[in-house]
């Protein structure tokens, strides 16, 4: 990623907005942008979703491959998450090897989904020691206007929920629904001005500071946490964010369930 130019005036303006309990796009402190989710949008993927949050647009595609189980885990299949932010998504995303930013994005989203245990890797075994399913979740950004983290995490779980195991194509049985046992949802908070806000848009990310990503499961269990970029936050700030994440993750889960 090219280091974007951060205009000094932007930071000053964001700070003034924060002092006046306002945001650059008119939202409230904890208000998210409208979320649009569409599933089964990629004909060649075994599960897929497109998520739009404001002008941030991402795709998630699930593909299956047959793998040989690892020798120390002969009865398990695997889950792999890969995130790509290519130049298509924004002026500052350059071609070339994955940048630290995109690697962090991929790994944070991966942990949120994997650690929730929503995919039963034991059920992916076909023949112990010989064959198992590998579930590959590919996250692909089309337009970056801030908060790719939450968009990727949401698209990822939405795609997994409608994934169908292509047993027939691989001649190992009949197709069946992959199924997820829970729905982990990620909520990201950026420090803008001197307070945290939810679902930062592009300009807030540009002029903002540290960020915190929280992934919660159906029962408010915490599945992953990440603090990114330099900056300091307090226990009080974190407690408030955790409370907000509990509320918001339920709202998003409801949107997914209503599809």
């Amino acid at each position, binding site marked *: 990623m090219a280091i974007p130019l951060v205009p000094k005036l932007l930071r000053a303006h964001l700070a003034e907005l924060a002092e006046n309990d306002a945001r650059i796009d008119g939202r409230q402190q904890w208000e998210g942008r409208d979320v649009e989710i569409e599933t089964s*949008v990629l004909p060649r993927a075994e599960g897929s979703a497109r998520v739009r949050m404001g002008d941030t647009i991402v795709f998630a595609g699930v593909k299956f491959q047959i793998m040989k189980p690892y020798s120390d885990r002969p009865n398990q299949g695997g889950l792999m998450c890969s995130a790509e932010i290519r130049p298509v998504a924004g002026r500052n995303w350059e071609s070339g090897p994955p940048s630290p930013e995109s690697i962090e994005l991929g790994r944070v989203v991966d942990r949120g989904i994997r650690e929730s245990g929503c995919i039963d890797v034991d059920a992916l075994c076909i023949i112990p020691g010989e064959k198992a399913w590998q579930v590959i979740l590919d996250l692909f950004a089309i337009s970056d206007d801030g908060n790719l983290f939450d968009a990727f995490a949401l698209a990822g779980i939405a795609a997994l929920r409608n994934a169908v195991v292509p047993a027939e194509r691989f001649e190992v049985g009949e197709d069946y629904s992959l199924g997820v046992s829970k729905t982990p949802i990620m909520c990201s908070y950026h420090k803008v001005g001197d307070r945290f806000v939810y679902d930062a848009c592009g300009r807030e990310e540009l002029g903002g500071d540290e960020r915190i990503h929280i992934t919660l499961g159906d029962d408010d269990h915490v599945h992953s946490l990440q603090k990114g970029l330099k900056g300091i936050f307090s226990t009080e700030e974190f407690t408030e964010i955790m409370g907000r994440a509990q509320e918001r993750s339920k709202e998003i889960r409801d949107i997914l369930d209503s599809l």
Partner: protein
Amino acid sequence: MNSRPVARLDSMSKKNGAGGPRDRGRAQSLVVPGQDLGESEGQEVGHGVIVMEGRLRATKNGRIRNQGSTVSIEPLHTRYIPRPGDLAIGYIEGCTNNIWFVELGAPFNAILPMSLGPGKVEFGGTRSVMDVGEAILCRVQEVEETHSSVVTMKGMGLRKIRSGVIEEIDPHLLGRLIGKGGESLKRLKEDAECRVIVADNGRMWIDGDLDGILEVRRQLDLMTVESRPIPVGGGH
């Protein structure tokens, strides 16, 4: 699979949601790159039009404008190209010991030599006077194809921008923003009680209290939405 409407070849002529612009009147004056615009005999070419084999041809997507014998295109989307004399709002993107690199939203950056900078600057002292990320109000001094354009801050009103916000708007909307004889802009400034300076490179500086700034931003958003030709419906 998705269930979006799909255009079939045989339904291109039918108005059932797919194919064909909705407002025939407005669409008629819209042209696309490569479109023939008639004989070139006796006509002058303006922006977005070239002559090929004796005929006028559009090179951009936009509306045709005929002013006297000049045919030009008002593009739907355009990039700023600096011209000498332009008032511009730029961001310092980098500097050496005796020049600053200024980002103007153009295809390439401009340079601001130390001698044309604000006040008195010593060799090596550029960064302490103006650092990366600062915004300036400057004027384009010269534009030459073989080297970058040069901007200057020596001149009436040119300075470092220390407060307020900078908003971007498509350069071709500047006319609408300013209005006949500056009417629209004057009204905007009064409504919002803000100082507003509109530069030629599609940027404007708004200074005032927060409510005023938000009001100006609101009106700008409205203007951008209203200026889109026809909303693209369905599909996405």
